[in-house]
């Protein structure tokens, strides 16, 4: 054998050469073995991209046989979107700008599917520095990529769901007090991203004073494990000073070793609109309930009053039949006439009330309050001079209200004549009419120095129909009932403050 011969013949030089050749051979075999049986796909690629040598793993990875791969280039099976980035790096490598490069890229599998590879490329140059070939290692990362993609997708979906819903996200480190507020959290209050710091007090200090207790209590209950989720509805002050209703939800996701809450994740949802609707609904319900109550009450009043008169008629007619003398009959006739007149009056009262209840299309005109008070006192001139009453009109001339003229006249006449009717026997009646605004509502106040009303005793019935309290012969118990109905029909309310023997103040909210 040649090698044996060389080895024996020229011991010194030859044997060393041989040794090197052997080593080369061994190392080449080792490389070939490593190349062939590597767990990673490996290839030697020509400068044009042609596969020169590929290992089994790469064949498995791409689905092609060695022969099939040798007939094509890496460009042929590279996913188009990833080709440019790969070629760019390759050029840099050739240009000597980098020693190797690494890229995650997609390949087309023979079966048409897509596989992900982590590609590592280095190159081998000849003595003149010309590119001989590239050495590529391609690790199959398809499984990891699938998981990553799925995660990214779900993350995107989640993000989209949250942002799409307009909810803000917060992430609170309870131990440091630091909070990450998403841009949406801040935008909800009208702030840009950098206008709000990352401390939990940023939100706390903006919570409405009336809601702050429940806000802290609900979070505390969640920290104590009493609730699975922290849920609280509260108002938060926006940049412009207005308040928004926020549905705040959160959950402790990590705890300290000592069992204290560490990290809390949560969301802010703007529920102002829903709250507004809820409030409107409640108001509507209140109005309807109130109307329903009034109608039931009214039906009872009608029943009661008509029954009183028809009962009396029935009784009187029965007695007339039994009456023996003409004078007796005459007396009964007088009573019948009285009942008939009362019945007519009652019917008139009921008409008045129904008129208010039915008069939905209330005509509103801009009226000067002072002028109307003046007109009312003129209409009552007889009563006023008879009882030496003094009416002080303190309403400024410029006060104008949008009101039904008929109602205003009726309300003023009724209140002023009541003030005189229930005068104190020991002094001349003094009635003061004034105007002010209370929380944006226009309020008319009529104060008298009369006998007053025992509110503890009669307060509840004061504005009821056919309720009289003083035993006055001319008290019908209709006036205040009608006044209240007129005031309420105009969207206002009437209140009374009084002390027996001192006088009474009727507060009429005109809007």
């Amino acid at each position, binding site marked *: 054998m040649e090698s044996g011969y060389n080895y024996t013949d020229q011991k010194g030089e030859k044997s060393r050469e041989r040794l090197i050749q052997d080593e080369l051979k061994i190392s080449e075999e080792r490389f070939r073995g490593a190349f062939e049986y590597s767990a990673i796909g490996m290839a030697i690629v020509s400068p044009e991209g042609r596969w020169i040598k590929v290992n089994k793993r790469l064949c498995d990875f791409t689905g092609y046989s060695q022969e099939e791969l040798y007939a094509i280039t890496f460009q042929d099976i590279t996913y188009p979107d990833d080709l440019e980035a790969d070629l760019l790096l390759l050029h840099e490598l050739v240009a000597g700008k980098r020693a190797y490069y690494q890229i995650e890229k997609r390949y087309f599998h023979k079966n048409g599917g897509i596989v992900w590879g982590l590609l590592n490329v280095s190159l081998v140059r000849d003595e003149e520095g010309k590119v001989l070939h590239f050495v590529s290692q391609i690790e199959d990362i398809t499984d990891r990529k699938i998981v990553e993609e799925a995660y990214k997708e779900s993350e995107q979906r989640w993000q989209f769901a949250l942002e799409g819903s307009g909810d803000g996200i917060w992430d609170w480190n309870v131990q440091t007090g630091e909070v990450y507020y998403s841009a949406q959290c801040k935008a909800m209050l009208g702030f840009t991203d950098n206008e709000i710091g990352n401390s939990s007090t940023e939100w706390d200090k903006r919570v409405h004073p009336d809601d702050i207790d429940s806000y802290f209590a609900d979070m505390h209950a969640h920290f104590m494990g009493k609730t699975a989720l922290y849920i609280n509805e509260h108002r938060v002050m926006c940049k412009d000073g207005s308040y928004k209703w926020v549905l705040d939800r959160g959950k402790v996701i990590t705890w300290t070793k000592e069992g204290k809450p560490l990290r809390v994740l949560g969301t802010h949802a703007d529920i102002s609109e829903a709250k507004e609707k809820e409030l409107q609904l409640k108001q509507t319900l209140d109005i309807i309930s109130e109307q329903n109550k009034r109608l039931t009450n009214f039906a009872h009043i009608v029943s009661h009053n008509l029954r009183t008169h028809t009962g009396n008629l029935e009784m009187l007619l*029965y007695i007339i039949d039994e009456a023996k003398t003409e004078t007796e009959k005459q007396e009964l006739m007088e009573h019948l006439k009285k009942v008939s007149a009362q019945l007519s009056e009652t019917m008139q009262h009921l008409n008045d009330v129904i008129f208010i209840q039915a008069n939905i299309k209330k005509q509103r005109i801009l009226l000067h309050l002072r002028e109307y008070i003046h007109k009312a006192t003129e209409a009552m001139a007889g009563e006023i001079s008879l009882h030496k009453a003094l009416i002080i009109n303190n309403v400024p001339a410029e006060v104008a209200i949008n009101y039904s003229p008929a109602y205003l006249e009726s309300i003023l006449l009724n209140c002023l004549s009541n003030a005189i009717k229930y005068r104190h026997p020991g002094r001349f009646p003094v009635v003061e009419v004034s105007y002010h605004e209370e929380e944006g509502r226009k309020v008319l106040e009529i104060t008298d120095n009369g006998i007053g009303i025992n509110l503890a005793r009669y307060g509840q019935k004061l504005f009821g129909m056919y309720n009289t309290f003083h035993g006055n012969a001319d008290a019908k118990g209709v006036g205040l009932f009608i006044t209240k109905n007129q005031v309420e029909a105009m969207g206002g309310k009437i209140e009374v403050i009084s002390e027996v023997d001192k006088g009474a103040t009727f507060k009429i909210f005109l809007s």
Partner: protein
Amino acid sequence: MSKKQMACIIDDDQVYVFGVKKLIQHYDFCSDVITFKNGEEALDYLDPRKECKDLLPEVIMVDINMPVMDGWEFLDAFVKMTPALSRKITVYVVSSSIREDDREKARKYTEVTDYIVKPVNFENLKQILCA
């Protein structure tokens, strides 16, 4: 038929009072009828006469809706007065109200024998005065 000596009507409706008085006289259910326009007037009469058996009515017919002092307020005061009364007084609430609330409220007073809805007629009066 045990004829009552004295009946008491507390009602602000003068026509009603006139009619009932007439009926009582006509059927001779009762020798004497005293009437008051409201609860307070009735109490003003009854209170000083608690011990004078002959001056107290055996039956009271009280209305609910009255000015100054209504039927309920009268009943509250009357209940407090009962232990001191020298005569057993039967009380009827007589009203035009058909409210179940009122009927229910009247039932809660053990002193009230019955609730009668107006108008009163021969049968009612017989029941009240000849029991």
